């Protein structure tokens, strides 16, 4: 069964249509790149899946259910913006996440933090921006969720941090779960993707397996993207 299914999904904000008639299915065990320029509807789609927005028309289902209390157990969400209380330390956060989520794997979080050689007693506000982003990703990936929604996880980090983040994603998701990564930094993520979905002005411009796309075009997903979105 598809973990995420959109049919005819449409969402407008006033006169602006953010998503229009989106049909999409994400199978379990896939890492999917939700790719599109700024303003193409990526975050809107993620917020709809999370139940943070309600569809205008059409339908979005997570694990066969409409977004709500039940589907929140299935989804682990990394928002675009920093959302954690900055007076907490990484250690505090682990307690916080363990209280909120039954599926939080504290041992996994501790292991990832150890590899980062980060002082887990230090308050977030005293960490660098890059470290804060990594801590937030670790909390999200340490949940044993069915669907990980990562909104711009590599925006604004250096190449070494980007490698750490991608490695954390591939080594922590379990094969029954799916990961949706929204980004416009395609060259950086395409190696970790099973599937790609190009969003353009709220519509699905292309959906394909990443390697099939590379095979058909004989070039990288990034290069195909540049052609599709040529200004």
């Amino acid at each position, binding site marked *: 069964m598809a973990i995420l299914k959109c049919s005819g999904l449409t969402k407008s904000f006033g006169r602006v249509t953010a998503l229009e008639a989106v049909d999409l299915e994400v199978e379990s065990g896939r890492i999917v790149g939700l790719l599109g320029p700024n303003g193409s509807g990526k975050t809107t789609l993620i917020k709809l899946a999370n139940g943070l927005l309600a569809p205008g028309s059409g339908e979005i289902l997570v694990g066969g259910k409409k977004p709500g209390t039940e589907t929140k157990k299935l989804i682990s969400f990394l928002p675009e913006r920093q959302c954690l209380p900055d007076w907490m330390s990484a250690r505090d956060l682990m307690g916080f996440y363990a209280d909120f989520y039954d599926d939080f794997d504290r041992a996994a979080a501790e292991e990832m933090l150890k590899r980062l050689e980060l002082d887990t007693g230090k308050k977030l506000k005293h960490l660098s921006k890059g470290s804060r982003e990594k801590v937030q990703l670790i909390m999200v990936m340490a949940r044993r969720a069915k669907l990980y929604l990562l909104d711009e996880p590599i925006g604004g980090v250096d190449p070494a941090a980007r*490698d750490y983040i991608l490695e954390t994603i*591939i*080594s922590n998701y379990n094969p029954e779960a799916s990961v949706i990564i929204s980004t416009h930094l395609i060259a950086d993520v395409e190696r*970790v993707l*099973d599937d790609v979905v190009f969003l353009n002005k709220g519509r699905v411009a292309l959906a394909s397996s*990443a390697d*099939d796309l590379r*095979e058909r075009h004989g*070039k990288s997903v*990034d290069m195909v993207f540049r052609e599709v979105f040529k200004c």
Partner: protein
Amino acid sequence: MEWNFDSGGPIYGQIVEKLKRSIASGELGPGERLPAVRELAVSAGVNPNTFQRALSELEREGLVYAIRTSGRYVTEDRGIIDSVRRELARRSVREFLSSMEALGFKREELHGLIDLVDTDKKEE
């Protein structure tokens, strides 16, 4: 193992190619046990399913084999390894010939060129 992917064809194909070269050159020896897919994927920085697809392709070609409970191994069949080695060598020669042709060299000039490079090497 160092992993570099170019922007050309599919990633799984590039992994197949790289592992073939490692097996042909003996970097991965006959009967050697391969790390788990997840581990390989993380070290190459690619999707585990993509790496799995590459390994399935190598299995299909008889270069690696899987034992259900203990993992994947490089074949011990030296005949297969040697035929891959020859196939890769032939391809390198073809590439060499076509780039020489593009530079306007004739086939009979090539031996002279190779000797010349050999002398250069000795002088170093």
